[in-house]
């Protein structure tokens, strides 16, 4: 299948005087406007869903609330099926309380499948950030008209860009099962021709390519971080990934002129006392705030494989602050991250399928994610929407 034959639409939300609205931009430039449900109804339901996903201590309760969203009221947040049927990929730009909602988990009764099975989906917090992600995406430097991918139809993939290098890192600072997390990281990285899994003294931020002055051999197409996520519901800027202190290391911050200051951890964020850490580790959190200080990357894809790495909070100007969106802001073209707690069993089912679709079959990322979901649900009918819809694609869909 040819990439140029895919039809892509931009679904953008806004809040009107009393309703939630969505606009759908077609490739040819036409714009459709849809009035969706009243916000007096929407916000109550959204608050209940978000509260249960982020704060409820009962997994059963979370699943019940989630299923109500997926099978009952979620469809009121998208245009009629006939309006979106023509698209292969839908780019979603939420607004306000709709940020962070798993719209891809909405059940489409007419199709007897979920939206994520039917369409390739990618989210971005704003159209301008989406544009920047697309502009810096090296995959778009190739001739997109000639990009052919295997859409499970036997087509041989031919595209000049292929993600060739990956650096990964895995650590479990809470339970000490780092071997399990390193194995996930290694399995991810081995899909690429050039790969490295950072272990021991080589596991540093600098070697991951996330730095103002990355080391020469640390320019990676793909970065994969496998660790526990931490969501700070009171101060979301302090949310992030629980990593070993050696990974965070020291930060060389360039001040005015030639002056360089060295900080161990900036801004400071202690691991919360109720988060018990395995005594073998000195844990730190790679936070959203920290990534605002002198961080750059040119990675095509960053995989944040921990809990709630895409969960966050709306700030002023509808800026959605989450670890995933911060990686997009510092230069990543696309991010795969989780909206709530990620199960490692699901990850082990989904991840190889996504990587095969993207790396071997040359599929654009949104199509690769769509395929991985379909393949996973075909083999594991025991996964409920709460289990499989946890991962989302953010940023550029290519």
């Amino acid at each position, binding site marked *: 299948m040819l990439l140029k034959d895919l039809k892509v639409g931009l679904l953008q939300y806004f809040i009107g005087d009393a309703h939630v609205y969505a606009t759908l931009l077609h490739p040819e430039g036409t714009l459709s406007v849809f009035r969706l449900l009243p916000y007096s109804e929407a916000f109550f339901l959204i608050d209940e869903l978000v509260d249960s996903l*982020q*704060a*409820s*201590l*009962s*997994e*059963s*309760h979370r699943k*019940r609330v989630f299923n109500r969203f997926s099978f009952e009221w979620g469809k009121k947040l998208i245009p009629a099926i006939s309006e979106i049927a023509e698209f292969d990929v839908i780019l979603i730009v939420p607004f306000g309380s709709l940020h962070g909602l798993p719209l891809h988990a909405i059940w489409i009764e007419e199709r007897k499948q979920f939206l994520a099975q039917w369409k390739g989906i990618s989210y971005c917090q704003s159209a301008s950030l989406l544009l920047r992600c697309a502009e810096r995406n090296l995959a778009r430097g190739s001739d997109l008209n000639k990009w052919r991918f295997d859409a499970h139809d036997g087509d041989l993939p031919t595209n000049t860009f292929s993600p060739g290098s990956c650096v990964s890192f895995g650590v479990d600072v*809470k*339970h000490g099962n780092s071997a399990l*997390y390193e194995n996930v990281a290694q399995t991810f990285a081995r899909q690429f021709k050039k790969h490295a899994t950072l272990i021991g003294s080589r596991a540093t931020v600098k070697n991951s390519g996330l730095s103002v002055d990355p080391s020469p051999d640390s320019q990676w197409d793909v970065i994969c971080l*496998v*660790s*526990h*996520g*931490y*969501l700070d519901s009171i101060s979301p800027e302090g949310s992030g990934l*629980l990593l070993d202190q050696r990974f965070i290391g020291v930060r060389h911050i360039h001040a005015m002129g030639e002056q360089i200051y060295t900080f161990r951890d900036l801004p400071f964020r202690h691991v*919360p006392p*109720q*988060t*018990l850490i395995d005594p073998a580790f000195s844990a730190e959190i790679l936070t959203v705030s920290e990534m605002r200080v002198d961080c750059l990357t040119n990675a095509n894809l960053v995989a944040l*494989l*921990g*809990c*709630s790495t895409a969960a966050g909070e709306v700030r002023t100007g509808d800026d959605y602050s989450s670890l995933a969106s911060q990686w997009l802001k510092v230069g990543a073209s696309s991010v795969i991250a*989780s909206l709530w*707690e*990620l*199960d*490692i*069993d699901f*990850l082990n089912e989904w991840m190889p399928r996504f990587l095969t679709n993207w790396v071997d079959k040359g599929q654009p990322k949104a199509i690769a994610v769509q395929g991985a979901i379909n393949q996973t649900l075909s083999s594991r009918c025991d996964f409920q929407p709460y289990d499989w819809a946890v991962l989302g694609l953010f940023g550029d869909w290519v």
Partner: protein
Amino acid sequence: MSIWNQHPNYSDDQLRQLVAVCSEVFLDSDTAAEQFPPDFLEISPAMAARQLGPVLEENGQTLHAESVQEVLQDPIPSRDLCIAILTEIKRSPELATRVSETYARRERKMGGPETVLLAGALVVLAIKLKELRWGPEGGRISFYESAETVKAFLLNLLNLSEHPPSPGNGK
């Protein structure tokens, strides 16, 4: 390896997680759904103490809710109380299996909500739920005797806190 192999020598983290899981298993039962709201696990020690008062006073004693709250908040007696409840749960093979399977699933999560020791929620559920059932095919477990054992244990803790041992009289 089941978490029950650690009984009763749990680390603080294990005990917190296990108490949360037990509370969740109780709350997921049909009997709990009839009596408790879905967000019951977030109940505060003060609220739990007020719920326990009438149940504990069935034996004719007069108890202050503050005393119950103190026991629930104090790390040492609340830990002892939770261990006592876990001992009763462990006696029921079907219930213990549900808990250990849920605990193992929770361990596979790469993060999740942080929690304190949910002693209040677990104590209320363990004392008030005399029977647990999960759907028409899910089975039924009687928890009546265990609930009475837990109540007696808590009353003993309260008696100790309300009537501290008198100082020696010098003899």
